[in-house]
């Protein structure tokens, strides 16, 4: 009788502790995205060079869509990587597009200049495009295949190897099972 009581108490206490531990272990900021495998939300942005670009213009190409801001340290950390990998992939039917959010235009231009970024970049002043993609932590990157479907989403810095792998998957329209996470900065 006392043993069964002790066991029951222990089971309850341990399960409560396990629940507590699980709760503490989670990243409370993390928001799983429902967008993986779904058609990419359409958008139209004004580029820094004055031109306009919409997602429909890019149908038939693999799109690397990167949301960033000049005040975000992880974005700065990966800027060089992105430009390098763009130089390697730009002739392979792949389009890189950076979307600057929650930023001052001057700061954004200075950022592009500092890291010698040559791929197209646009500004999302109203935040509508970012909300359309459920952006909450930057850099946030979406890989879109030729048919306009999101094959992979990554919150935070990527690294060149991962970018190359995911671009290859997007070319083959392979949808990842899970989104990825690197070091990120919550947006404001």
């Amino acid at each position, binding site marked *: 009788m*006392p043993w069964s009581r002790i066991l029951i108490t222990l089971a309850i206490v341990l399960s409560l502790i396990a629940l507590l*531990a699980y709760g*503490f*272990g989670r990243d409370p*900021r993390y928001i799983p995205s429902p967008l993986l495998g779904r058609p990419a939300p359409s958008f139209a942005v004004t580029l820094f060079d004055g031109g306009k670009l919409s997602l429909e213009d890019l149908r038939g190409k693999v799109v690397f869509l990167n949301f960033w801001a000049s005040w975000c340290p992880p974005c700065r950390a990966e800027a060089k990587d992105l430009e390098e990998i763009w130089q390697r992939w730009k002739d392979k039917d792949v389009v890189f597009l950076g979307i600057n959010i929650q930023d001052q235009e001057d700061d954004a231009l200075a950022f592009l200049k500092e890291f010698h970024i040559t791929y197209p970049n646009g500004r999302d002043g109203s935040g*509508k495009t970012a*909300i359309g993609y459920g952006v909450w932590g930057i850099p946030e990157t979406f890989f879109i295949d030729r048919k306009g479907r999101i094959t992979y989403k990554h919150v935070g810095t990527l690294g060149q190897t991962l970018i190359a792998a995911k671009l290859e998957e997007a070319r083959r329209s392979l949808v990842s099972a899970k989104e990825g996470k690197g*070091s990120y900065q919550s*947006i404001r």
Partner: protein
Amino acid sequence: MKSEKFLRLIPYPLSLFTVLLLAVSLLFAAQPVDLEEQVRRIAAELRCPVCQNLSVADSPSELAQQMRGVVLEQLKEGKSPEQIKAYFVSKYGEWVLLAPQPKGFNLLIWLLPFVAVTAGIVLVAFVVRRWARKKPGGQPATVDPALMKRVQREAALERPLAVDPEAEGPHAPLLQQQARLYADLKELEFDYQAGKLSQADYQDLRQLSEIQAANVLKEIEISRRQIAKARKAKPMERPTPGREAARPLFRRGWVLAGAGLFLLLFGLTLGILLSRSLRPRGSEQETITGDFLTGSSKEPQSLLAQGRSAFERQEWAQAIEAFKKALAIDATNPEAHTYMGLILAQAGHSEGALMAFDQALSRDPNFPLALWGKGMLLYRAKGDFSGARQNLEKLASLLPAGKEKEELQQTLAELSSQQGKRVKTKKAAGRAQEIRGVVSIDPKLKAQADGQAVLFIIARLANSPGGSPLAVKRIDRPLFPLPYSLGQENVMMAGVPLSGKVTISARLDKDGNLMTREGDLMGEYKKNPVEVGSEKIDIVLDQVM
């Protein structure tokens, strides 16, 4: 009425028109207010993605503001609140709704509180009923008249019952209760005799106490009988009186120990979790619990490994984080300092990098990576060839023969050739055309030095002391004492050589132009004039303009 009079002053059709206009304008004015309220209502149901438990309506964040903008826009497009909420759910997932929809697993969240409340009520009712049943009842109907008689008889005795208050045994509490009730009866009697109680009160109270005492007697009887029965049933295992008394105590001890253990466990867990979680977060990348439950270890070795791999991936922020943590555990760890130095060096902060390498070498003067880092930094960034050589040669003496050593020897060879070149050029041209020294500030005037000021070091030709400067060196925001060198590149007019005899002075200027102003600090070399090419031309700023 005043308003009627006022209305009469206006021609009738006109007043009607104004009223109509007013009504229409009110209607239009009312609509945006309504829309705003609608936006607020929808936003109040959405969770702000970048806040912690704030609705989009309440959050001051930029994202929440933009989300309210999207809500307003969609309302204007004629979408229903449900459609708008569905839009946000399709972007951020169910997560974005502050109240999860009562479907599937979520249903549990909605039902659980009600289930818990019902279970609680049932439990309380159950427990209360058990208590009520246990309580010694005061119903006179169940009292045995013989027992009543015994109570009256015993209570009437001069000394009714003497019970040792520290007596032990299975009936000790009951016996004590009985003695107390007898004492009460005595006291009642006394009060009645003294005229403190009315007859009716006395009888009521007396009966109550007698009934209670009778019940206690009955309980004692029952318990005695039970013990006797137990002894009869197990005559071989007759427990000694000591063990009999100890048994309930022993059980209570178990319960106490269990409760204590539980409290200890709970307290420890809570303490550990809270102490790990309630600390300022170093960066956005950290989870609330830091590394405690997320797997990564606090061992310096694994932190260093983490840092190294981040360093190799060129993820500087992560690498810095890991090495900082390693240094928090072991403040002099040479490897962590060295890697910090390498990161600083690649970012162009050579001073900080040098400091880090020195710290690493102060703990372990033979740490190869620090020797290499310091040597290369002195060589490439600082141009201090002899310092570089010293460090790299030391490293070369430590390295075993192999590819790395060969490369190092190559670098050393390159270094010597560079050094040779430098010495030659210096001998040929450099030295003769330079003036070197240190500018310092009079300790008494230190307070007047402005951190934002600009220091000018001026060389004038010795034969025209008040004339225009020959060469000027400008240093923004100087830190004293400041070593300087004035060379050909500082000459104001192109083509004029810096040579011959000059007077050297320095001025700390508040506004950054060459004109003197009140409050500027001045200083001159005490043994002016000097020959160009001299060294140790030290200037002290000791005059105020």
